């Protein structure tokens, strides 16, 4: 059974048809890439999947449940985590607090426990802190737990964002240009990290990326979006040789 099934979703902003008739099926454990020229509607697809936008047509079915029109915090709880194209960390907070916030679901205490600071409040808080720290360790950020997030170097901010998204226990992880602004070495490290994460957490990953070398090496299947429509779908090899894809990226051949 497919983990995520997207049926014919469309959305328009004013007169602009940002996404039209987008279809997608993700099997558990798959690693699929979404590419396309700037303004093709890639991030809009992500925003629809995570509930930031409501599609005007079509349905999104996740894990057997119709999630079309659900609020984005509900969709997150159901198991879709995401990162953002232009990193959205809680900038003024520490690295540790950034991850702790993602453990909202883990707070096993009620208001009474909050106000009176009972034992279960303290145990639960300790648990959250421990989990958050171990999560940071995986991403090699535990040494910077006390630093303010905005002071981290760019590559580490990207890693922290992934760590934070993973803290929410997602089944499906959406990565919006995870390698943007990274140097080749950092990109290679990211590649290894994504591969490892997928195995370790048995994740399904759907990612947008402009760095073709990363996409081609990482993804098993690639979708190409242009003007809101899927123009090609297939293995990296097929995509590389697809004339419509080449046209979309480089323009039509002059005859």
């Amino acid at each position: 059974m497919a983990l995520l099934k997207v049926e014919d979703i469309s959305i328009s902003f004013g007169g602009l048809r940002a996404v039209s008739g987008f279809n997608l099926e993700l099997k558990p454990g798959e690693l699929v890439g979404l590419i396309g020229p700037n303004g093709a509607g890639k991030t809009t697809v992500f925003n629809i999947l995570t509930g930031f936008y409501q599609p005007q047509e079509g349905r999104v079915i996740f894990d057997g449940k119709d999630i079309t029109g659900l609020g984005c915090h509900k969709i997150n709880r159901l198991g879709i985590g995401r990162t953002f194209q232009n990193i959205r960390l809680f900038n003024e907070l520490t690295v540790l607090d950034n991850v702790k916030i993602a453990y909202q679901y883990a707070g096993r205490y009620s208001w009474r426990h909050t106000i009176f600071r009972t034992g279960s409040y303290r145990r639960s808080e300790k648990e959250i802190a421990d989990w958050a720290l171990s999560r940071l360790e995986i991403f090699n950020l535990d040494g910077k737990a006390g630093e303010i997030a905005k002071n981290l170097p760019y590559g580490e901010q990207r890693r922290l964002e992934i760590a934070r998204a993973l803290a929410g226990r997602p089944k499906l992880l959406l990565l919006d240009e995870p390698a943007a602004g990274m140097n080749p070495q950092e990109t290679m490290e990211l590649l290894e990290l994504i591969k490892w994460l997928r195995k370790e957490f048995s994740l399904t990953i759907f990612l947008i990326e402009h760095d073709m070398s990363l996409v081609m090496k990482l993804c098993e299947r690639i979708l190409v979006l242009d003007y809101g429509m899927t123009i090609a779908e297939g293995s990296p090899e097929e995509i590389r040789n697809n004339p419509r894809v080449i046209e979309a990226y480089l323009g039509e051949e002059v005859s």
Partner: protein
Amino acid sequence: METQTTTGLEKAKAVEKWRTHLFPAGLAILILLNILIFMEHLGFSIVSRYYKGILILAFINIILAVSLNLINGITGLFSIGHAGFMAVGAYVSALLSLNMGRWEFVSPQVQAVIQFPLVLLAGGLAAALAGLVIGIPTLRLRGDYLAIATLGFGEIIRVVALNLNITRGARGIASIPNYTSLWWAQLFAVVTVVIIWNIVHSNHGRAMVAIREDEIAAEAMGINTTYYKVLSFTIGAFFAGVAGGLLAHHLTFISPKAFDVLKSIEILLMVVLGGLGSITGSVIAAIVLTALPEVLRFLQAYRMVIYAGTLVVLMIFRPQGLFGRAEVDLTVFKSFFRSRTGEEVTSRPEKRGGNGGSA
């Protein structure tokens, strides 16, 4: 916080040093104050009525500043209608007190002790209800727009109080029983600070802080932002209502004039001066700003000029407020005594980043 790191240690140590001096000073004042209040309660008249009045006002202002800080500083909702909630609490509790009648089965003193907290609670709940009703539609707005909406709401409450029969319009309500003693004021101030402190340092508080930092990211982390925004607004309103009730039973007279925009601004000033997001900052700023006009009384007509000037200077040199987002909490207390006893710092291996720094 739970972890220490070696990075930024120098800066943290400098701040720590400054705080270790500040903390015992604050503690000493607090203990002294409590002794005074206790003696007062035993029947010794040490503090004059004048000072007692200022202290009660300071406690009421602490409640107001800390509750507004939950809304403005922690959740990042720019609200300037706090006086409105205060008015709701003040009127509801005052009217209840006046209409409760005399209970025959207990003495008047006992009746006051039982009745007063109930009346305050009712005032707080009424204000919380107002906060809920206002919050649900207006909290869709952000920043300046929300500020204007809450400002408008505060004015609506004032004008309603001015025109209703039951609130006696501009004449106000007089001869409210003078129930607010130093004890009550301090008790409610302490309870407020403790409750809000505990909320802020929990999962719920983290959700609120996340909303302040980045609402979209907070949603993507599974936080129900609407719920927490309305919640923070309602809790803030509740305590403003309690403070309003305390004020009504302290002044024994309330009129709509006391709850105008200026009052809201005055509370906002305390929050900004203490540091948006710092609860201890709000407490200290509330005390300072209550005392300052009185301390400056000898300057007569120039008093308010100096008062305003002090604020301007403070905002120029510390735009983030006295404390920024830092808190003076128990870790400071621990580290203060640990640094006094010397070697204990090194004898604790799990603390690798020097003495306990707090976030």
